């Protein structure tokens, strides 16, 4: 599985309240949520994002609440992958459970800039910065999580068992 797209760039501690503000959580409709994705940190995100684009951020991406609406709105907005130095743990779980690919790679997070075109290979964890002609090795998932992702998320995994 691979992804390729243009990069939206954010800093550390991007919290779930800015990813999808609570004032929109009176619905759980993914497409409605996606219309407000990143609104409080980047009002232009929804206007500019194209299917396949990639988010790159520094430390502790997705900190804060457990709202699954956060990875869901990112996925539904068209983002193919989030790369960060590291992730808050509930966001990490949720992303895997709903099938939003995420990768931890401090090196890539430090180097990739907004607008770069980046290619990601989820099987190997290899990240290629096409614009800068550089590669970074991200952390591939442990075997158990690869199984979850291969099944297409936790629900399918349970249904298969």
């Amino acid at each position, binding site marked *: 599985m691979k992804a390729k797209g243009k990069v939206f760039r954010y800093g550390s*501690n991007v919290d779930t309240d800015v990813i999808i*503000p609570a004032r929109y959580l*009176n619905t759980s409709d993914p497409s409605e949520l996606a219309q407000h994705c990143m609104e409080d*940190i980047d009002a232009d995100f929804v206007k500019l994002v194209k299917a396949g684009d990639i988010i790159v951020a520094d430390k502790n991406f997705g900190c804060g609440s457990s709202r699954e609406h956060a990875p869901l709105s990112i996925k539904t907005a068209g983002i193919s992958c989030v790369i960060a130095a*590291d992730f*808050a*743990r*509930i966001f990490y779980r*949720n992303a895997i459970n709903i099938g939003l690919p995420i990768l931890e790679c401090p090196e890539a997070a430090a180097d990739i800039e907004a607008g770069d075109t980046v290619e990601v290979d989820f099987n190997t964890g290899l990240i290629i910065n096409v614009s800068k002609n550089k590669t970074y090795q991200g952390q591939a998932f442990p075997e158990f999580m690869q199984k979850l992702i291969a099944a297409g998320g936790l629900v399918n995994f*349970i249904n298969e068992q």
Partner: protein
Amino acid sequence: MGMTMTQKILASHAGLSEVKPGDLIMADLDLVLGNDITAPVAIDVFDKIKAAAVFDKHKVALVPDHFAPNKDIKAAEQCKKMRMFAGEHEITNYFEIGQMGVEHALLPEKGLVVAGNLVIGADSHTCTYGALGAFSTGVGSTDMAAGMATGKAWFKVPAALKFVLTGKMNQYVSGKDVILHIIGMIGVDGALYKSMEFVGAGIANLTMDDRFTIANMAIEAGAKNGIFPVDDRTIDYIESHSQKEYTVYAADEDAEYEQVIEIDLSTVKPTVAFPHLPENTRTTDEITEPVYIDQVVIGSCTNGRLSDFSKAAKIFKGHQVAKGVRTLIIPATQKIYLQCMELGYFKTFVEAGAIISAPTCGPCLGGHMGILAAGERCVATTNRNFVGRMGHVDSEVYLANPEVAAASAILGRIADPTEL
């Protein structure tokens, strides 16, 4: 190798004699929690699981607290979805308006969590129950759905940080200041993926309410859970609230900790977290420029318990809320509400010029009952001060203990109670 408290609870629920950090395990759940924001998503996921039935109708708790009493039509639909699900699956621990409260204050009070339990909740502050010597952690809606259907969840066994507490807190210092002090020290990702285990002689000087507040905010340091050892005070609390059997786990002598941090409680001062992260802490004596405020909120799963209101009432007694400061008092549960009424706190609050709300999360997450406009500032006893958390993106939230919040309401700026 020795195990921490958290590791022992995880091992026992996974049917293993030993676990170590990094192990991926499947563990049995004692309780699965959801609220009116996360449960509707979980119900949709649940319906996609083949032949799904609830694993145990007594081990699911559903609490409409965030946007309830229903703030608008959409919220009403969400609550209805949860209510219908509860009816259909005969969930015994569904708490309708009239019985409900803010989930993390409600569940311990109803005796639904006891020492040694393993609890997941589709809410990040599920970590609150660590105060009872339980392992509890926040998850998402898909985990909640899977938990309701299978009674199990997957976990990566966390490494741990040990906080050795000694000494006794001074006047106007409480659990909130201790946890803000810790987060200020280690940062909002200082305990990422890890357990925070609190130990030491100082714990005997912490009330259960202090412990709930401290465990509640472990997530604000990125932790998977926060946990306290079980002592006489914990057992008193459990036995007076619950019929459930409990198990006391203690960390092994040779349990491994990535870091040991010592905190003398007598050195902790009243602490305020400035916008927009809980780690931006300053003690009240470090605030030199006046920070004028528009609103004060005393409530939430962090500081909406009886002792919080008794402390606030003592400060408000004989004083008036400053002109132009809206002050909201939100008891976290019906029981706390009634106790505040019986003890006369409500009279004190109303006479001071504050208003009293039914139990709800309300303004804590910018839901309803006290949303901030652009440029407005609020001192809140809640747990998060992220951008836009309580309303407009250009509003600001300052986190504090109930006494500091009350003193601030009276003086119209962030204030230490000693200034009164």
